[in-house]
């Protein structure tokens, strides 16, 4: 049964654990076990999956993510990647990104302005292998929409879902919202890379966490 997890501070004081006792539901040990189960089940799993972040440096007047450069014909000439390793228990990767449409300087010298572009970008989770080897696409998801006119602020986009919860997305990304969960079941323990293939936008921040197996 789902229960709100307890705080760590509610773990029993060590001085209360001074005697051996049967598990009868009334003692400290079962209380400890329940606390532990709550904590492990509700809190530690995502924490173990960890988080990675990504930031990009400003250089030559162009901000953002590698992969935001176009060749003038709308063709993406680069993609961007973050490497990490899945835990053995991982079944999905949740990601959130912030991106901006301001101040994009394309290869032609043209500047893309907010509100003038709709975007359709793709996040691809694939195996990370040594250079020269072919990787396997694990899952991919397309996201995008019309960017809200904004020059000085950052347009957020965040897609998120968990295994048992309804889809929640950040509103400004517009149409195409949906699960932003990359399924990685069966790839636990492997080295992977999360690749963003984006057009017309600058990705400024990326965060991701992995989700573990559902609680029993």
């Amino acid at each position, binding site marked *: 049964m789902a229960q709100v997890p307890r705080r760590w501070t509610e773990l029993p004081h060590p001085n209360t*654990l001074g005697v051996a006792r049967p598990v009868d539901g009334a003692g400290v040990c*079962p209380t400890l076990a329940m606390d532990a189960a709550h904590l492990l089940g509700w809190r530690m799993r995502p924490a173990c999956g960890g988080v*990675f972040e990504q930031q990009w440096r400003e250089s030559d007047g162009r901000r953002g*993510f590698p992969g935001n450069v176009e060749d003038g014909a709308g063709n993406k000439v680069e993609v961007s990647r973050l490497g990490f390793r899945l835990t053995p228990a991982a079944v999905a990767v949740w990601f959130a990104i912030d991106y901006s449409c301001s101040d994009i300087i394309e290869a032609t010298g043209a500047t893309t302005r907010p509100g003038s572009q709709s975007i359709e970008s793709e996040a691809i989770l694939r195996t990370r292998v040594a250079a020269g080897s072919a990787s396997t696409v694990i899952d991919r998801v397309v996201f995008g929409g019309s960017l809200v006119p904004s020059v000085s602020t950052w347009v957020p986009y965040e897609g998120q879902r968990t295994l048992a919860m309804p889809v929640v997305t950040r509103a400004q990304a517009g149409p195409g919202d949906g699960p932003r969960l990359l399924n990685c079941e069966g790839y636990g323990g492997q080295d992977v890379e999360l690749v963003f293939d984006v057009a017309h936008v600058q990705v400024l921040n990326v965060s991701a966490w992995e989700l573990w197996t559902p609680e029993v």
Partner: protein
Amino acid sequence: MAVTIPATPTFPDAERFGSGLPVLGTATGAGWQNLGQAINYLNAYLGTFGPAIDQGWTSYAVSGINDGTDFRATPGGGSNNGAGSGNNNVYVRYRIPWLTDLHTDLDVACYMVARAGASSSPLAKDAGTFTARCVTSGGVSATQVVAHASASGDGWYQTSTPLALTEWSSGAGFAQVEIQLTHDAGLAAGDLISIESVCAEWAPLSALSVHIAANGSRYIPLDDGELDADAALSADLASYIRETLHALSERPRSLFQWSGIYGWAGNPGTDTSRRVADRFPRYVHLPMHPHGLLDRGDYELTAHVYGGDNTADRQIVIQHGNHPTGLSRGTDEIGSSQIPTGREIVNRATGPNQTVIAIPQDAGNPDWYTGTLQVPIESQSERSRVRGPYYSARVGFNVADFDRSAVAVADDPFAQSVSIWGR
């Protein structure tokens, strides 16, 4: 009798420990044994996956080019990287929190790219190396060198053996890692080599013994034999579970690793291309529920800043809050009515939610400076009872909007690396 680290843990339902229930050890639906093994699993894996370091850069931000004389950092406006002819050092630096005294092996990988001049095609020759090294108070203590191979071209290159980090013994509580990019002597003028992504992960523990957390608490392996069906539960066992859970709850996570250096070689005050950009927010989404912040009182952020300035004292301000401008709740992002937040970070522009890292004038000798900040988490009425890991705070630094962000603010740009972790 064995200390088992399961391939994938089974988390027992708390109701298995209800009043009057039998102690199920090995049978289907086991409670205590699953519990013990899940704790062992976290003991071995917590913080080992989920990178200690993970960063990518704008193309060629961390790169060098053979201009016929020197290996010059690009795109540094023609300046070389600071040490004159033949110098070929391009660094990025990080500090990462120690997990335990047993975690010493760090797997490091870089996505390396080599180009001939302005060509977009991979360069078909050995182009250079990246060197990952651990730097301790006594100097470089471990080094791994990985070469870019012409036959393989662009792609991920990983250390063949983990980088052995040894700083724990000094009690520093963190490891310091440097990545150096070095070009190959055979590169022609105009050839370029670049690192576009770097990631590093602690290797998980394959066997458990009693080991120590950074705060001095212990991790005690749980033996299947003590968790067997109908076995009496010893006082020791209960104490071990509690102590290990406490240690796990305090294990730090690397939240934010950023190093914006190219061509960095000693004088941050005279070459603006070598400093952390200060124009836009840099942060990480910090999940608040159910992980991380929800179930405890304060959340502690520790920030390490590498930098300095020739001419003046500087400072980095660390603050926290909900969201920067443009990410205010309700209209332009996750709506509060949709998102069960549980608890939330309290916005305060000044006071105990702010700390300042002083960076003294250093005459061209940058160094690391550290500050910590307690982030108070307060209950948020009935929404705390609704599940959903969908509310994220932010941790990072941000010049323009520091009063509302969960940020550390670089109020001057003379910093080359920022590492933040939390627990």
